[in-house]
């Protein structure tokens, strides 16, 4: 198995505007999740010129932020779009670098918050991380989700934004896999590194 740094290297090799699926093995979820965070938040950005927007649907932004801090990621250029804290009634201490959406069903709001952050904090090499496709699929019907990803990813592609979608393998339907095959340019399987 290759070191985690290899994932970051593969992501860096992708051209701006690419969409990549990061497949996590459910049997090694904790390790893979941490590796995905290290690759997207630490290895890929934020550096001095890049910004990362982390759309959290699986875990509250506060939890992801604490993991990011363990990776020595600073808050300067990391923004969260948190779509889960409200629905989990876990909205007591909002992060200063997070914007909150009431429910993971409000997909247009997710698009608009990402748009807002991209406009407000222009960056030459922005990255958007969506955590995760599976969580979005729990709250949204497949047709709606397909339309969401199609519009969002095309929009981000046209703006040269690198997008990473976290996907837990074995936990997806064939419809979801087909949709992902249509919208992403590359898949990195964290269970098959090296």
């Amino acid at each position, binding site marked *: 198995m290759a070191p985690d740094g290899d994932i970051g290297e593969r992501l860096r090799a992708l051209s701006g505007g690419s969409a990549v699926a990061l497949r996590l093995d459910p049997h090694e979820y904790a390790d893979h999740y941490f590796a995905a965070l290290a690759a997207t938040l630490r290895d890929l950005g934020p550096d001095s010129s890049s910004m990362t927007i982390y759309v959290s649907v699986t875990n509250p932004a506060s939890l992801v932020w604490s993991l990011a801090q363990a990776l020595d990621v600073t808050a300067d250029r990391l923004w969260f779009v948190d779509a889960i804290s409200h629905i989990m009634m876990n909205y007591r201490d909002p992060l200063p670098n997070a914007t909150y959406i009431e429910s993971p*069903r409000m997909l247009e*709001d997710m698009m*608009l918050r990402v748009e807002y952050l991209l406009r407000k904090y222009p960056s030459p090499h922005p990255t958007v991380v969506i955590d995760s496709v599976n969580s979005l699929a729990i709250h*949204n019907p497949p*047709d709606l989700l397909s339309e*969401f990803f199609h*519009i969002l990813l095309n929009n981000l592609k046209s703006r040269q934004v690198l997008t990473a979608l976290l996907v837990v393998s074995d936990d997806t339907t064939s419809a979801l896999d087909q949709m992902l095959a249509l919208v992403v340019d590359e898949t990195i399987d964290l269970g098959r590194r090296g």
Partner: protein
Amino acid sequence: MADGALPGGPASEPPGERCPSGIEALDNILGGGFPRGHLVLVAGSVGTGKTTLTLEFLVRGAERGERSLFLSVTEASSKLRQNLSTFEFFRPELVSSGRLVFVDIPVVYEKLGLDHEELTLEEIDLLIRAIQGLVTELKISRLVIDSLTSVCYRIRREERIRDFMLKLSQVLADLNCTTLLVSEIGQASGRFSLHGVEEAIVDGVILLGNTRRQGDIIRVLQIIKMRGTSHSRAQYVVELTPIGLLMAPHLKGGRQEGM
């Protein structure tokens, strides 16, 4: 259509100067902005963003050096000016330099001595001339009346509202002043103005409203009509942010809706 032009393509747009709203997504779906000198109704129920949209139209215009006037009927202009500070792109110099002007219509009523509850024909003419005078003297190229509904409450009779609208439309078109008229409507009124007369006369109608998906309320915008432009007829979700109004396509997920 010009030779080789495709329906809906850029070359199919008829010639004519545009007045960009400054709201990027709105200008995109309008083919560059409102046709200059047109009268456009911005209709919606309470809390749908009508005043915010019209304020942004004026501030963005003033930023471009176009003199902009907000005629307020329902809310004191001092309060509206305070609300402007929520826009990150607003600069107080726009007001102090006279590029962005606020006038309270009740003050105009008072100056003109329009104290009848229902305006007479002569009083309606006086009001139109007063608006014409303000636009001419201040060299206004962008105007907002918030709200047309409140003005029409004092005109009351449909035939007089029609007359008022026709004259106002003519006067402002002659002055090449692009005008947004705020129209307050109920959630399910089925029309875009108080009497239905107003929407027939204006050049364009923008509808703001709320829709529901699985119980969640979503704020949406749709262009109902815009003469002289092949605009989008799709529905968009809007968000009012400190950097201005943002829009995204309203996702349907394959749902079919009846007409």
